[in-house]
């Protein structure tokens, strides 16, 4: 279970961010409140990603399914970091 959690952790953070932004924009429409809240949520998600990165980096599994899951988890976290950042841009510029 732990292994799966980290494997999916990056994309899960993205999902949380996305649905939070969708919810906020649906309630507060195109307004400054939306932008501020969206910014805060995005920062929190980036922080979560940073925490995940540090946490996963620290474990050093030796043999294969674990070492492999470790690698793919890191990949997922890296891609999600970019995705979360990208997803927050509309709040700043749109």
């Amino acid at each position, binding site marked *: 279970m732990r292994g799966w959690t980290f494997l999916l952790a990056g994309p899960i953070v993205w999902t949380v961010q996305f649905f939070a932004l969708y919810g906020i924009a649906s309630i507060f429409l195109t307004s400054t409140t939306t932008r501020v809240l*969206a910014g805060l949520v995005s920062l929190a998600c980036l922080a979560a990603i940073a925490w995940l990165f540090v946490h996963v980096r620290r474990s050093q599994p030796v043999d294969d*399914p674990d070492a492999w899951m470790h690698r793919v988890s890191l*990949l997922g976290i890296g891609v999600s970091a970019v995705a979360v950042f*990208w997803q927050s841009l509309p709040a700043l510029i749109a």
Partner: protein
Amino acid sequence: MKSETGFDPALYDRFPTEGERPEGELEELERIWCAPKGWQLLAAVNNNYVGTFYVGTAFLFFVLAGILALVMRVQLALPLQGILPQETYNQFFTMHGTVMMFLFAVPMMEALGVLLLPQMLAARDLPFPRLSAYAFWAYFFGGLCFFASIFFGLAPNGGWFMYPPLTGMAYSPGINADFWLLGIGFIEISAIAGAIEIIVGVLRTRAPGMTLDKMPIYAWAMLVFAAMIVVGFPSIILGTLLLELERAFAWPFFDPTRGGDPMLWQHLFWFFGHPEVYIIFLPASGLVSMMVPTLARTKLVGQNLIVMAFLATGFISFGVWSHHMFTTGMPRLSIAFFSAASMAVSVPAGIQVFSWISTFAVGKPRFNTPTLFALGGLITFVIGGLTGVMVAMVPFDWQAHDSYFIVAHLHYVLIGGMVFPLFAALYYWIPMMSQRALSERLGKWVFWLMFVGMQVTFWPMHILGLMGMPRRVYTYLPGRDWDTINFISTLGAFTIGLGVLLFVIDLARNFRFTPDNDAGNVYGGGTLEWLPTGLYSTRSIPVVKSREPLWDDPDLAKNVEEGRYFLPNSATGLRETIVTSPLRAEPQYLQIMPGPSVWPLLAAIFTAGFFIIMTIQAYKFSFACGILAIVCVLRWLWDTDRLVKEETVDVGAGIRLPTYCTGPSSHGWWATMVLLTVVFMIFVMAMFSFVYLYGVHPRFWTAAADKWSLLAILPAYAAAAGLALLSRHMLAREKTEHWTPGVLFVLAVCALVAGIGIDFWSWLRSGLLPTTSGQGATVYGLLSLESILVFIAVLMAGYISARNGRALIVRPRNNSLDLCVLFTVYAALEGAVTAILTRLFPWV
């Protein structure tokens, strides 16, 4: 090496075993796994047969929908043609789109999964063979009846996404739309059955030693595919249910004059509909990722990146549904968020494409038919992907929306991303199940006709779209410069048709189904499906040590065939397979599998009957079918979950495994959890509908039912959950009377009935009726969902009592009881949340 389950990995070193296997083992396997002959073949459940029927049927629907497309193209070849009158044209494009998406693309991918997965994982079969058979037959009968509606002029005509208000009673009074809603809603249920099978199959029946990192990439694709079905399809099931309720009983879910909203349909539809595109693309990408290394004769470049891309697609594709609704006037920021996600989702697809290109570049491909189809698919898909990024830009989409540009885009993606890979896969894997491979020479013709035809048909449509030709028009006026382009497009369509025809001829000439005497590994693949097999799959189940075991161990096939690995015989004299752990695939127990049976077939016929006959409003007959379907399902389940006399058996090399397993590590538990996820997702989408309608039309909201009734409802549900858990607890106790667990379970279900009963009664007393407003409709919709769960629990109570009566509920743990308890506890939770949400929202 670490262990996941306590199994000692050092035991793997005992394989391959030394010495000859005793005589007669192989014959016994053949006898146990043989399929019925003649008419009784319809009762077969072996994945080879069911898988082949399934692929064949899906292909049939491809051809049928293709013929509809050709007729449409003839109609559009010249301006003001009179071949298809307007109404028929509407039915044709609706049926073409619907059949291609729901009866061809998704089922074809599931069908290939049923056919290929057990072989690739070296399992004897998928974990629930009768469920696969049921899913197939339900789809077969349901699909054919649905298609037949076109011959009676009763086919749906509202487009493949069936937007209300066009599809509501006011504008579509006939039963055409009902055919779509009931037919498709029902076929989705069959897709979900297949998804459950695939998830449990991939996670629990891999060959020992096939850890997650050594799992074939196709299995990864299928895992994500099935998970996406589980999350995405509930939304369309709910949507079809709500629209049907609106049409049949005037519950105003989508009627803005009474507090409903047509946009709700668009949200529900596209929350399923866009992931659907990836649901179709992922398995195809899995197939390509399996074929490319073999065809290029090298290892796949970036395997880990591809796995990551699959997982990322699985998530991100659920964040893009509203890009189909850019023109509906959503808040500007929401649109921007969806636009960003829509661009992001092309990154994982790009990763896959680059990985294939690099593998081809690194390797030494021979340009045989599967390679051509894989490359042709790649080129076509990339073009479709680029136009996809174009329409993800909101201002461009405003221009291109509902024009032929979209028709071009969607066909590029679907044909490049799914149809061409499918043909590659057919050429590549047919030697696995046919005595002869298909013809290379004809194959090249098929490819070039289809590829050139594809470009000639759809490329000009981009231009037509930019020149302003709207989609879904049955004809157009001369003098707009659309004539020549349309004519060229029609010529292209017939070229594709010719290619498909040649393929069918090739099939007729060369395809000869065989479970054991096949043409073999023509292209030199390295994964387990290329081991020699019979109906029992491989003679023995190998220990997997790498991603391409056949490339890395040249003796593997011989040793497997001589029975030198796991399960070289039938340990119990019954059909069986090894269930392994989800991460490291360590052997856990021996699953006893059911054999051929007519009950899944009959159950499927009656289920299809229930839905299809309901469309023509012969309610008594329809309900009779429903009852018969339930009886058949119960009868089929009755034979399952039995103990065998051996508690543990030798599965090879002196390793002993139990023959019965209960609780969270059993495959039944896993399947139930997946099923409950589906039910939960339906519930989530229903709650979304409720909150959404309040959000858009709060003025229609009136006071909720009496909050004090919660004081009766919540204890009733708590009692239901508590009693159910108690029944499980009591079964484990030595001193418990024989009848106690059964009686406790029945009491639990009685408490459930009380809970939903009081809930209904209190709403009826409040004066709000389902027809009153969007609030009434969604409240009663939520209550109806809970009633369905309670109804199933009542059936379970009867079933558990009957099994208990026959002493089939065995101590200390029993799967049938466990799974019914799990379901009841869930039903109680959902009931409680329903009662609280409908009363306290939005006044908390």
